[in-house]
Each structure stands twice: as structure tokens, then as C-alpha cells.
């Protein structure tokens, strides 16, 4: 299956979440015969259970398929599926760097969304040929003309090459592929030049070591070649090459323009970073390819094993996970209450959620996450500046001149009738009003400056519920601003618990303190003795609730000698107990550490 470069097309599919991207990829796989209809599960490229369950794409994924056009010419198409959620735009930019074109999917019933815009501009910045595809045209509520008009007016693309498809029924898919191979340019690059291959993803396989996904930009790599990872400065001998269809098909070599996988018994995970360039040790390229922009985490939290003996397992799991999720950053930290663990940085709450679930499912770990926090800036009286993302690291108030927190520029697109509710939400979250733009006849864009910390707590869910799911949020970082912030400590049985501290806006402290102690009182089960839960600022208690002592916990009946039911109940209790952390002599369930996250009950 050798293709000359003229017959190779590399493109990705970009779209807003829910606009049918993964279904469209399924249809392409089916049309090109890469996957038998019988084998076709819904959303083939969403490999993780988690992705299929939630119906979202988290990881980019690449496959190679062959396609014969109307003139009988055969093309190799490298298709890269990308995530649509705002948290994962980093993954999108990685996949785009490996392509020459992109299919921009727009839902005919929804039109252009804020997130679509962001991804399109990423593609245009990467000099990609963008082909608009209007999907879901089979639905009665489809409004093709409106979608076209928006593509022209909002994005600034022309629509004469626009494809009309239904990924669900398969209508228009042939024509779309025809147009894609016609309009998207073949990859450039010189197979005779020194090897330059971009690593855009990787995963760990216990038999083969790290397997990397590469896009060869120049030159050629063969089995047996000694390669050199330019950023890592490490050499390896290639023992496997191939393309994914999505089944792995081994090949002897990969050359300029091609996308495929490479294995070289790379045992040390740290040697591989997406964005690194692979070249030949014997005949190296003079410069590496432009790498990726290092993305900064937005949200941080502590990650601790419930069973402190599992610390090495957690370390190992994080290392393996970060291999194909390079946006996950972590470093060791320790807590008086929780022992040894890690401080980890995430792109957003969904990302944090996904990492937690993957660690628990794929690595069988029981974890405690502390409440998410942003990275604060603290200007000290001695003229120096420190940054901290763990509330415990906040310098003593006597040394602090001022505290700053990160703000974001938020654009919320919403149907007109919810503008009032959206603005109220933003006001309640300490937002600074910026602008209100009429996007089209029915929708408006509300622009606010908001503290990032206010967005990470339940903001998205609130937004969705107050707009019946219609409003969408996009935001970008907008520097630091001074805020009246204080550290709030939580005391259990009179002792401050470091892992429960949080940074709060001073005028909200009293209210939040009350909410959190009441919440903790409900979450923490009764103990053998009465336990006060207190919230304090600078040693001054501002709220208190008491956990009562346990009085009865025995099933007083064990009838006819049938103890099986009793045993089942105890078994369940045992599972619960395993997920608790003993702090002092108080048993605290995992959820307690995330309690601040669910404080919205009864608020707003």
C-alpha cells in the first residue's frame, strides 16, 4: 500500500461538542471500507469507555484509510478526530499541526457556536484548508440557509465549497470526501531531506514501551534506523512502524507526508513529549520542527491515594497518563492530613474529572482530590512576588501587600430571552460587565471579565440550567487583578485540616463558611464522639456546626440464623470505610474534600 505524496491527504475534523463529529468520522470509516459495518460500534474513534459513556471526545485519535475517487484514483486519507470541549482545545491545536486541511462541522439545527469559532481560528492560524460541512440536514429543524449565512458572516468563510451531509444517514458523505481530496492540498516535504517527524501523541504499551504517533514532515524512517529525539536528546532503534486503519498495519517505512505509529522499545516515559521532533542519529536534521505552545494549567488540586501505601502506584499511573495527556502537570506535595500525594494542574474541571476517572478506572486507584484552586499571585511587603495554587501556601497576612487572582474574558452566547439570567449569574460571580453583542436575530453574546475561580465552581452547570442548555461559554485568560481574598481554614475537632483550606473572597467568607461547615456536617458520618466543624479566618472562628456522636449502629435483628444479608450490609459499609481517610481520630469521606465544589445549593 504505497502512496506517492500527491495521493495523501491529512485532515482533521473540528466542531463544537455535540455537533456530530465522531459520528461523521464513523461514517467516513464505513464509506472507505476501513471498518466493516458489522464491526462498527458507534463512535469508533472514541476508544476510552469514558468517551463513549459521556458521548464526548477527549483524546485526539488518528486513522489511515484509503479512498478511491470518481476518477478511480486511490488516496490515502489520514483522519484525525479532535475533542470539542473548551478544556481540550490544546489537543485540537496538536492535531491541527499534523494536517493540511480540516473539515469544519456545523450543526444545521444549531448554527455556529462560540467554541466553533475558536477552533476554526486555530485551523486558519495553522494555514489549513478549511471545508465547511453542514451536518444533521436530515433533521426537520435543520436550517441550512441560516447555517450557511452564519458561516459566511460569523466565520468569514465562503460557502461555495460547503458540503451538506447527514452523518446519521450517510447522505452527502461521498461528495464530501470527493471535495476533501480535491481541495485539500497534498502534504509538502521532501522524502530525500533529513528526517523530521513530529510526535503528536503517544501511549504506553507494557510489551512495546512507548508507542508514538508521528507525522513525517521530511525524510523517511525505516525499521532498524537509529533515531534521535531532538528535545529529549535520546537515541533509540526503531523496531516497529505502521499505520492505523484503525487496526494497526505494520509497514517497512514511513516517509514525508505520512502519518503513522512508531515503536522503539522506549521504556522511559519521560523521554517522550508530544511536540518533540524525531530525526535520524546518523543524518540529523539541523533544526527541530516548531513544537507546541506549552499550555498552562488553569485549575490545580491535590491528588492523594486513600491508602497511603499506594503512593508509588499513583506516581506510576500519573506518569503513564501524562504520556498521552501532556497537558496534565503534576509535582509531589504532602499534606499533614492526607500524607504524600501530588499537586496536579489541569486545563479545566472536565479535564480534572476525566483524569480522576481514568486514574480510578484504568489504574484501580482510590483517590482523594482536594478542592480545585486557581494560581494566585501575592505581592509581599518586601517587594517580592510569589505565586501559589495550594491555599496552605498563602503567605501570612502580615507579609502580604496585596493578593491578585487570574481573570478570564468570558463570552457567553445565549438566546436573547436568557440574557438577563446570564448577566445576573455573572454579577453574582463578581463579574465586570464588558459588552453585549447582537450575534444574529435570536442570539446575543454577553461579555464579562470574571475571576477564574468563580468559573470553576459550578458556573458551567448553572449556565446550562438557566438557559435550558442553549447558552455556551468560551473564555480566554486575561491576566491578574487585585482582589480582597483571604484564606479560610476548616477545623475538625479543633484542629485545622490543611487539605480543607480554601481561598475565598472576603465579603463572601461568612456566608461561605456557614455553607461549608453545614455541608461537612452532613457529609461526615457520625463519629464515636461529638466533633465540632469550624470555619476560621486568621484564627477567628466564623462558623460552626457539630457532628453528633453515633448512638446506634447495629442491626438488632438476625433472624433464623440468616446472616447473609447482614454480611452484605457490612460488606457495603466496609467499601465505604475504605474510601475514608482517618484524620486525627475523625473518619472523613472522600467527598468532604470536594465539598466546596457543591456549595451552590440554595445559592443564587
Amino acid at each position, binding site marked *: 500500500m504505497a502512496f506517492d505524496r500527491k495521493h495523501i491527504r491529512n485532515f482533521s475534523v473540528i466542531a463544537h461538542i455535540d455537533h456530530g463529529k465522531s459520528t461523521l468520522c464513523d461514517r467516513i470509516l464505513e464509506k472507505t471500507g476501513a471498518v466493516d459495518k458489522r464491526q462498527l460500534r458507534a463512535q469508533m474513534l472514541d476508544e476510552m469507555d469514558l468517551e463513549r459513556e459521556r458521548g464526548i471526545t477527549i483524546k485526539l485519535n488518528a486513522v489511515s484509510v484509503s479512498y478511491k475517487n470518481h476518477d478511480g484514483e486511490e488516496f490515502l486519507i489520514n483522519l484525525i478526530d479532535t475533542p470539542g470541549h473548551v478544556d481540550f482545545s490544546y489537543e485540537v491545536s496538536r492535531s491541527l499541526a499534523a494536517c493540511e486541511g480540516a473539515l469544519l462541522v456545523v450543526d444545521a439545527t444549531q448554527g455556529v457556536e462560540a467554541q466553533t469559532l475558536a477552533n476554526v481560528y486555530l485551523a486558519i492560524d495553522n494555514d489549513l484548508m478549511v471545508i465547511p460541512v453542514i451536518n444533521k440536514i436530515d433533521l426537520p429543524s435543520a436550517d441550512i440557509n441560516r447555517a450557511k449565512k452564519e458561516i459566511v458572516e460569523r466565520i468569514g468563510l465562503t460557502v461555495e465549497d460547503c458540503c451538506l451531509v447527514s452523518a446519521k444517514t450517510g447522505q452527502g458523505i461521498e461528495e464530501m470526501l470527493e471535495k476533501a481530496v480535491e481541495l485539500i492540498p497534498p502534504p509538502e516535504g521532501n522524502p530525500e531531506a533529513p528526517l523530521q517527524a513530529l510526535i503528536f501523541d503517544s501511549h504506553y504499551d507494557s510489551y512495546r514501551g512507548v508507542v508514538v504517533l508521528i507525522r513525517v514532515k521530511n525524510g523517511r524512517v525505516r525499521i532498524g534506523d537509529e533515531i534521535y529525539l531532538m528535545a529529549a536528546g535520546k537515541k533509540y532503534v526503531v523496531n516497529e512502524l505502521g499505520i492505523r486503519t484503525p487496526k494497526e498495519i505494520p509497514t517497512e517505512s514511513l516517509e514525508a507526508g505520512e502519518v503513522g505509529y512508531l515503536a522503539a522499545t522506549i521504556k522511559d516515559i519521560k523521554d517522550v513529549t508530544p511536540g518533540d521532533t524525531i530525526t535520524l542519529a546518523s543524518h540529523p536534521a539541523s533544526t527541530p520542527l516548531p513544537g507546541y505552545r506549552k499550555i498552562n494549567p488553569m485549575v490545580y488540586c491535590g491528588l492523594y491515594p486513600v491508602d497511603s501505601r499506594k503512593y508509588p502506584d499513583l506516581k506510576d499511573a500519573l506518569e503513564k497518563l501524562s504520556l498521552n495527556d501532556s497537558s496534565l502537570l503534576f509535582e509531589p506535595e504532602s499534606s499533614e492530613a492526607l500524607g504524600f500525594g501530588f499537586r496536579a494542574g489541569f486545563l479545566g474541571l472536565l479535564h480534572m474529572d476525566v483524569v480522576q476517572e481514568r486514574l480510578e478506572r484504568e489504574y484501580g486507584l482510590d483517590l482523594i482530590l482536594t478542592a480545585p484552586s486557581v494560581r494566585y499571585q501575592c505581592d509581599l511587603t518586601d517587594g517580592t512576588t510569589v505565586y501559589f495554587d495550594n491555599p496552605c501556601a498563602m503567605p501570612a497576612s502580615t507579609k502580604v501587600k496585596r493578593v491578585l487572582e487570574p481573570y478570564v474574558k468570558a463570552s457567553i452566547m445565549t438566546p436573547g430571552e436568557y440574557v438577563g439570567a446570564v448577566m445576573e449569574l455573572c454579577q453574582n460571580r463578581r463579574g465586570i460587565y464588558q459588552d453585549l453583542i447582537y450575534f444574529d436575530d435570536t442570539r446575543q453574546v454577553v461579555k464579562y471579565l470574571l475571576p477564574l475561580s468563580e468559573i470553576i465552581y459550578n458556573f458551567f452547570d448553572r449556565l446550562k440550567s438557566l438557559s435550558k442548555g442553549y447558552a455556551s461559554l468560551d473564555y480566554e485568560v486575561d491576566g491578574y487583578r487585585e482582589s480582597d481574598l483571604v484564606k479560610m481554614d476548616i477545623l475538625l475537632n479543633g484542629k485545622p485540616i490543611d487539605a480543607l483550606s480554601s481561598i475565598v473572597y472576603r465579603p463572601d467568607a461568612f456566608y461561605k463558611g456557614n455553607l461549608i461547615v453545614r455541608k461537612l456536617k452532613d457529609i461526615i458520618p457520625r463519629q464515636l464522639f461529638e466533633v465540632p466543624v469550624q470555619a476560621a479566618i486568621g484564627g477567628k472562628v466564623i462558623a460552626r456546626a457539630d457532628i453528633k456522636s*453515633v*448512638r*446506634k449502629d447495629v442491626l*438488632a*435483628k438476625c*433472624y433464623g440464623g*440468616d446472616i447473609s444479608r447482614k454480611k452484605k450490609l457490612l460488606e457495603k459499609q466496609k467499601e465505604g470505610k475504605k474510601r475514608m481517610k482517618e484524620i486525627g481520630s475523625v473518619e472523613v469521606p472522600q467527598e468532604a474534600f470536594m465539598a466546596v465544589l457543591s456549595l451552590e445549593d440554595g445559592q443564587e
Partner: protein
Amino acid sequence: MKIPSLYVHIPFCSSICYYCDFPKVIYQKKWVSSYFDALKKELASFSLESPLFETIYVGGGTPSSLSLDELEELLSFLKPFLLKGGEWSIECNPESFDKKKAGLMFSYGVNRLSFGVQSANDSVLKKLGRRHCYLDAVNAVKSAKEAGFTNISLDLIYGLPLESEKEVENDLLALLQLNPAQISAYSLIIEEGTRFAYQKMKEADQDLLAKQYERICVLCEQNGYNRYEISSFARKGYECRHNLTYWHDESYLGIGLGAAGNLEERRYVNSRSLSEYLRQEGRKWETMPTLKDKLECYFLTNLRLSDGFSLEDFLRRFSFSFLDYFKEETDKLRQNGLLMVEKGRVHASSKGLYLLDTILMTLFCAKVMEE
């Protein structure tokens, strides 16, 4: 191996109480004889080395709901299996018990009766879905005594919604006036599938339950009833031998609908479906217990007893010393005042008995249990 105890389940009831989740069916004459046949077949199927038992317990359902003839058939079937000097109990409901049945049972050698009195308050009885009134209970106990029974046990349910401590006390005092040999006090549990569960009834608050229980303990103690198990209070020498088999984690055979058994440490539960049971199908055997399972069962049964277990018995059974292997946990529980180790025995303290799950959780989660 010798099996000391036999449990026989009679599932028939004249009506269904609102809290009951035991295997039961409404009494219908047509089922009784085939049910008895099934019981006989089942008992024979175990091909026991020695089919003689030290205790037989006929529970339900409502065994007393059987007609006089049916009752006689059951009694004559079971009589040969009781060892001389053995304990033979039958559960009865006040409304279906009379002098004739009392006389019949006594003549066959039944020597212990357990009455489901539950409350001395007629409006409470109505709320529970019971068919008797308190006067029926008084008369039933009287009939039993006249027939010659001296070992009579009465059941009491406490912890009903909105029930005060005082009401529980009144119930208990009324029961004590009947001068039983034993009183069993159970707190109301809302079980899945019961009428109470459908009504979304909630169990009483644990603070209130604890107060009611403490009151029950004090009153029983004052009247000469010793708490030998969490919910059982007996006059000296009248502890239920059959139930002690359970609490000592010894073997027993259970026959009948939904009955449970423990044979050479392997446990089973019969089907709760009558048609399945009549075909002698649907018995579920537990997988072979591991050492951990055995330890868990041992603790969960023995520690319900006020005097717990002896270190000697533990050593004989498990061939290692309890105090060596559970040192850390025992120390912690002793410090918390939940567990006592004295005179070669390990037992829950008075406070610990009502917090037994906390004790069990600590022992179950011991490091040695993972190894």
C-alpha cells in the same frame, strides 16, 4: 459432623404485617400438605450422620396459623428428631393460638413458645398491621401456662415513628407483667419491599432509638432479665439454646421456604419462591468461605452476645491467638470503651453492644484480614 440444631420454616400467615420481609405466603389449605411433603423430602435429602437435634425451632411466617390437624401432622413428623432433653420452640401469634393448640404442642414435647406480641398498645398494633389486640396476647400466654408451658418468650418492637420513650416503657412494663421467661426487643427496620417501605416510612432517629434501648435494658435488668444478646433478655437459665447455636457460629440445618443453614461452615439459603421450593429447587450455596469469611462470621455472631467469645474457643477454631493478631484493633476498641477483654473472654462493652457495627468494621478492616 454433628449438627446440633434444626430450623423449620412455616411460611403461612393469615395476614401480612406491614414491616415483615420474611419468606411468607398467605395461608391456603391447599398448599399445606404439599409443603409438609417438601419439608420431609428436604430433611431426608441431607442424609445426615445423626438426624437427632439438640434444638428444634419452628419459625415463620406463623406456625400457629396451621389448623389443629395440620399442626398435629407437623408435630408428629418432627418429634422423632429431637434428642431427649432437647429444646423445642414454636413461634405463635396471639390471634391464632388457643388452649387446644397449646395442649397439642405440649403433649408432643414442645417446651418453649415464642409469641409475637410486639406492643401492648392496640393502636400501635393496628399501625403495624397486626391482627391481634393486647387482650389476645394476655389470653394466649394464659392458655400456654395452663397447658404447662414455663418457657415463654415475648417479642417487642420499638422505634416506631413518633413513638416516645414513655410509650416504649409502657409496652415493656405491660409485657413484664405477663411474667415471661424471655423478652426479645427489636427496633423497627424498614425493609425493602414491605408496605412500610412503599409508604416511604423512615426509621426513627438514632438518638431516640438509643434512649429507648437504654430504657429497655434498665427495666429488664431491674426485673431480673439478663441481656445475654443485643436484643434478648432472659431469666437465668432460660436463654434460648437454639439461638445460641447461631450466635456461637455453630452448624445448623434450616429447612423450608427461604430457610438458611450452616453446614460445616458452608452456608446456604433456600429459595423464597414457594413453587420453586415445592420442586426442591433454588437453593443457593455460598462459595467456600475463606479464612477471612470465617473470621468475619465468627465476630459478627459471637460479639452479639454479652459475654462474647473465649480466647480459648477462638484459638481452638482458628489455631492462632486473637490478641496476637488483632492487637492494634483490640487496643483501639478498648481505648474507645467499646470492647473488653477480661477473664479470658472478649466481649463488647455495654456501650459497645449497640455500636457493634463500629466494632466489626474495625476488626474487618484490620491489616491481618488483608493477608
